C-alpha cells in the first residue's frame, strides 16, 4: 500500500507532505493506518469535497491511496472533512510533521 498525502493552502501557503510505503513501516504502524482507511470508507468517498461557500486560506487535503487493485484520490477542504475521515487525516498530518516521510 502506498499513500501520498499533501496538506496545502492555509494563510501561510506552506505545504505539508508525506509519502508512505506500508512495506517500510513497522507492522503495527501499517495495521493502524489500514484500520483508519477502512473506518474512513476511503474508497467510497467522493474525489472532491468542497464547501458551498468557498472562503479563503483554508487548508486543503489531498490523499491518494493505492491498495491494489484500487487507487483513489480524495481532495477535501478542512471545513467540510467528513467525521469518519478526520482520524486518518490527523494521523497522516502527524506523520508528515515528523518530516520522515517526505
Amino acid at each position, binding site marked *: 500500500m502506498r499513500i501520498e498525502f499533501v496538506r496545502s493552502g*492555509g*494563510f501561510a*501557503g506552506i505545504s505539508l507532505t508525506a509519502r508512505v510505503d506500508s512495506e517500510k513501516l513497522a507492522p503495527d504502524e501499517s495495521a493502524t493506518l489500514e484500520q483508519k482507511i477502512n473506518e474512513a470508507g476511503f474508497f467510497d468517498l467522493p474525489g472532491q469535497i468542497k464547501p458551498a461557500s468557498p472562503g*479563503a*486560506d*483554508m487548508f486543503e487535503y489531498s490523499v491518494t491511496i493505492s491498495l491494489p487493485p484500487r487507487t483513489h484520490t480524495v481532495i477535501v477542504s478542512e471545513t467540510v472533512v467528513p467525521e469518519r475521515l478526520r482520524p486518518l487525516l490527523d494521523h497522516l498530518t502527524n506523520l508528515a510533521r515528523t518530516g520522515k516521510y517526505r
Partner: protein
Amino acid sequence: MNNHINCLHCIVPPHMLESMLANGNEAQKKVALNAIGISGGIRGHRQALASAVAYLTPVTAPGKHRTVYTANDGSSLPGQQVRDEGQPPSGDVAVNEAYDGAGDTYDLYWDIYQRNSLDGNGLHLDSTVHYQQNYDNAFWNGQQMVYGDGDGQLFNRFTIAVDVIGHELTHGVTQYMSNLDYQGQSGALNESFSDVFGSLVKQRKLNQTADQADWLIGEGLLTASVHGVALRSMKAPGTAYDDPVLGKDPQPADMAHYVNTTQDNGGVHINSGIPNHAFYLTAVAIGGYAWEKAGKIWYAAGRDKFRSTTDFQGAADLTTQTAGELFGTDGAEQQAVKNAWIRVGITPGAPQTQPQPQPQPQPGGCVTAPAAIIRSLFGGS
C-alpha cells in the same frame, strides 16, 4: 435603518448640505449635520460648520459592529461570544487583538474608501479565536474570520499581526465585490488583494509612508526559532523566510518565475507575489501614504472593474485604466502603475471593452432613490 441619512454624504454636495443647515428646519438641519459628520473627516467641511456645532450629535461610523467569539480550542463556529462592540477589553489578548484589528480594518475601508464594512452595507464583523489546538492558520469561511493560536514551535497566535486580520477581512470585501475565483491567477489576485489591504491597514495604523513601511505580511507570526521575518514580503517576494523546517519562501516577484502547481488552488499564496510586488512598486513610485493613491486605484479597480475571472493581465489593464480615470491619463500615477506591471513582466494593454459589471451598492446604498430623499429634505413634492 439610517440608510437614507448615511448615504447623503455621497450624493449631496457639501455646499448643499451647508445650505440645508442655514435655511432648513430643525429636522433638515439634523439630517444635514449627520451626513456632514460622517463625511466631514474626509472632506474637510466640518470647519465651515462650526457655528452650527450645537446641533452636532456624536458621530460614529454607521456600521462598525464587531463581535469576538472563542471556539475554546474546539472546531464549532462561531463559538461562545466573549466581546461585543463597545464592550471593554477582555483579559484575553487574542480577543482584544481580533477586536482591535477588525476595527483598524473597518476604519481603513470607511475613512479612506467610504466603504461601510465588507458588503458596503454595515455587515457585522464576526471573529472566532482559539480555534482548535496548536492550529497554524487563520481563514475566512465565507461569513467570518477564524484564528488559531499557532503551535508555539513555528507559529505564534495569528491575531498577533494586524495585517493578517486586514488580510482575512479583505477576503470578505473581495467576496462582495469582484468575487475573484479562488483558483489560479484570479485566486492569486484574490490573495494579493488581501495582502495589499492588510498591509495598508498596518501602514495606516503606524502612520507610515510607502518608503517607511516594511511591506511584510505576518511579521511577528513566526516564532524566534524560525529563520525568517514574516510569511511574505511585498517588497522582495521570496525573501521572507528560509528555514530548515518551513523551507524557503517560494514567492516569485515576476512572471519569469511564475510557479505552475496544482497545490494550494494553483499556487494562490505563491503567485500572489507578482501582483503584490506590482502594488509595492506602484506605491513607492507614487510616494506618500500608499493607501491614498495606490490603494485608491487598486480599490476602485477591484470594486468597479474586476470580475471573478480577472487574471494578471486583466488586473494590469484595469488598474492602469483606473489610474487614468482617477488621476489623469498619462499622469504620474498612471505611469507608476504601468511601469510597475512592466517590471513584473506584464505590459498593460489598451482599455478593455469587456462588459461592465453590475453597479455595486455604496455605503448605505448610494445608488438607490436619492432624488426623492433630497426633495423631501428641501420640503419639495
